[in-house]
């Protein structure tokens, strides 16, 4: 087993080095998950110690990109937690409809599953043309993959079942063309989507939003960093704008608890007050 005392020291130094050199700020991430990911990266990248890894990433930017794939593990699903998307369709959409045009921000979009889910939902509600969607993440590889809109064909079974449970109105396979083990999603879905590099840890407000969905990102942040993200969301949202979180995330224990009210509490959908 990797010696625990040294590991904690090395991890801190690694995270500081990454920040100083690349301005990626992992200093306020949950340590237990970071530790697991770095140890996993050591095995996969065949490096003996965290200190050696630090040496490599400081002198070889490509090595940092390799490590970033482990630090920001791209894990996502289309219509993950179908009841969340059902609540958007049934509760949020009628209010979005009252705005002549609206902006949606998917923060921490990973490889794009969540943003395509949103686009499909809006299309079925005849609202896609009225929407401007921003999909942001800190992992450039994930953003490229999101923009490509290509997903593994063997995920389609799960995605289809999620889509149906989320109240999908059509046949899921209408949205992609299958070939060579992958599913290429309909290009018209992404006509109004802008994919961009944006960090909730270091960047600021970039536009005024009506709905922000940030799911399964904040669980990796400590409280001060969660507060920073909630502050960004609060400042980005229009009056009475919406914020949706992951199924185990809440604004309740943050500094912004009073600035949001539950809209669909079970699904962690809030409204700016």
């Amino acid at each position, binding site marked *: *087993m990797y010696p*625990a*005392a040294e590991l*904690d020291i090395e991890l801190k130094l690694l995270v500081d080095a990454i920040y100083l050199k690349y301005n990626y700020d992992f200093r306020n991430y*949950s*340590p*237990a*998950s970071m*530790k*697991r*990911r770095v140890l996993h990266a050591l095995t996969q990248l065949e490096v003996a110690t965290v200190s050696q890894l630090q040496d490599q990433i400081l002198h070889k930017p490509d090595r940092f990109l390799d490590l970033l794939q482990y630090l920001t*593990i791209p*894990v996502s699903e289309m219509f993950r937690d179908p009841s969340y998307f059902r609540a958007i369709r049934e509760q949020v959409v009628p209010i979005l409809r009252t705005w002549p045009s609206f902006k949606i921000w998917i923060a921490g979009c990973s490889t794009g599953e969540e943003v395509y889910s949103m686009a499909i939902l809006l299309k079925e509600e005849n609202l896609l043309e009225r929407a401007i969607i921003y999909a942001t993440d800190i992992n450039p590889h994930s953003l490229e993959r999101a923009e490509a809109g290509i997903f593994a064909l063997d995920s389609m079974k799960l995605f289809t079942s999620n889509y149906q449970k989320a109240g999908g109105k059509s046949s899921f396979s209408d949205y992609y063309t299958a070939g060579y083990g992958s599913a290429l999603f309909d290009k018209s879905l992404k006509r109004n989507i802008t994919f961009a590099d944006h960090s909730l840890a270091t960047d600021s407000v970039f536009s005024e939003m009506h709905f922000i969905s940030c799911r*399964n990102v904040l*669980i*990796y942040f400590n*409280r001060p960093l969660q507060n920073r993200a909630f502050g960004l969301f609060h400042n980005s949202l229009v009056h009475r704008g919406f914020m949706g979180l*992951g*199924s*185990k*995330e*809440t604004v309740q*224990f943050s500094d912004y608890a009073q600035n949001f009210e539950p809209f669909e509490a079970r699904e962690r959908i809030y409204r700016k007050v």
Partner: protein
Amino acid sequence: MATIRSAQPQTHALPLTVLIGASAGGVEALNRILPQLPADYPAAVVVVLHQPSEGPSLLVEVFSPRVRLLTKEADEKEPLVAGVIYFAPPGYHLLIETDGTLALSVDDPVLFCRPAIDVLFDSAAQALGSKAIGVVLTGANEDGAAGLARVQQAGGSAVVQDPADALVATMPEAALAAVPTAQILTATAIGQWLATLQPGGRHGAQ
């Protein structure tokens, strides 16, 4: 005299913590263990049970009427408290931070499992050292074996359900292969033994 001062992890403020991993047949095995734990229990209890990741967990509903401790689904950043049983939410890994708070993650499944017992046990070994008691129950895969070894290496105790008593013996057998010195007990006996834990007292026959 030369002394080399080393920064020891500060575990004195953290509660004794029982970590239980179970898979196929787990509800029944847990049902033979958890109801035996007395009110005012001096340890926190953290349970990872493999189950379908869809929908809310029913474990709190199932166990709260049958046990004398408070039961809840684990929330991110809540501190471990003695006398409470925490269940890992379906679809999330559950970890323990070195400050004794709980953390959740949606990182990739480990051995096809999320929550994974190994993830909980690894983090508990690091965070709790000798205050961790790892228990591996019935199941059809090998999750928990590597983690139990970590718990023991870090000074914690290791307990494995007797494979003959387990609905599915694969998981306890794998755990015993990884930790041959673990205590082997039936589920009922594990419950009896856990019920006698003393606050801060030595525990665990090796």
